[in-house]
């Protein structure tokens, strides 16, 4: 037992002789400030990704516009609305199908929500069918063949929007 006491006493004295309380505070400060500043480094910030808003380029009333990579229906852009909003007199369906499209301008993939606009008869202009990653109807959440107006008060389909809801995650 005495042996242990002597060992720990010696160790404690040795540490006390070689270090100071101020030194400990200084080193602790370095560790805390150093650790906290790591996320501020350019490398760490770069991994947090690009801005959420895509750079828009091209004609949004064309089927080839990047946001419409999986659209199946009439473009609201040609029907009195925009790719983000419904034409006056229609109601946006709350339920929708969601996919991703790659924006060729900034090279990033975005999550697109294809909310249908409902309540007024089919718009009839700018009919587009691009089925990238469209799945059969038994994968209903990934099928663009469904009338998503099922989620609104009227089941009558008018046109489709293509709203960016976020950046796609890449492993």
């Amino acid at each position: 037992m005495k042996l242990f006491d002597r060992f720990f006493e010696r160790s404690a004295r040795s540490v006390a002789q070689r270090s100071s309380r101020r030194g400990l505070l200084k080193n602790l400060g370095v560790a805390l400030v150093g650790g906290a500043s790591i996320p501020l480094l350019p490398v760490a910030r770069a991994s947090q990704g690009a801005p959420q808003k895509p750079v828009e380029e091209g004609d949004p009333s064309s089927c080839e516009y990047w946001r419409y990579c999986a659209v199946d229906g009439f473009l609201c852009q040609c029907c009195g609305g925009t790719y983000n909003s419904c034409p006056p007199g229609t109601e946006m369906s709350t339920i929708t199908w969601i996919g991703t499209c790659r924006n060729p301008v900034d090279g990033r993939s975005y999550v697109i929500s294809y909310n249908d606009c409902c309540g007024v008869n089919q718009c009839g202009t700018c009919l587009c069918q691009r089925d990238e990653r469209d799945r059969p109807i038994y994968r209903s959440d990934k099928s663009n063949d469904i009338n998503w107006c099922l989620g609104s008060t009227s089941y009558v389909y008018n046109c489709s929007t293509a709203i960016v809801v976020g950046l796609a995650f890449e492993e």
Partner: protein
Amino acid sequence: MIRSTLLVCISLLLSAQVSSAEMNETRAKYNYQMFCQGCHTQDGMGGRAVPQLKGFIGHFPKSQKGREYLIRVPGSANSVLNDLQLAEVLNWMIINFGENSVAANWRPYDVDEVSELRKNPLMEVLQYRKDLVAELTSQNKIMKVENE
């Protein structure tokens, strides 16, 4: 000099350990958007015939049956997400939409639990959920039924 280098190394190690223990929030949010949001909506409010997550989802893990329900519900059990991603997105939903419904002693889902329970998906879900909510209410685990 050596001590300073050591300190910096320790800070780096600690910082890395903290990040690996956390859930991958970006991936969880993305998976919610891709596989849940289409029906449950961006803010978790749901809609016609789609249950509301916001301010409610946290009630379920207050009982073992409710805890299992969130994994066995077809949208979870039959999803294309792997066990890790499913555990992650369930925890993300509870943290982000649970609000006051989440109990203080809530324990996040882990991969093993999700892996085991999703093997037994629910076939009939509407009545099951209704009965479960009634059960939780009778046990005073839900004080006010906001969405049945």
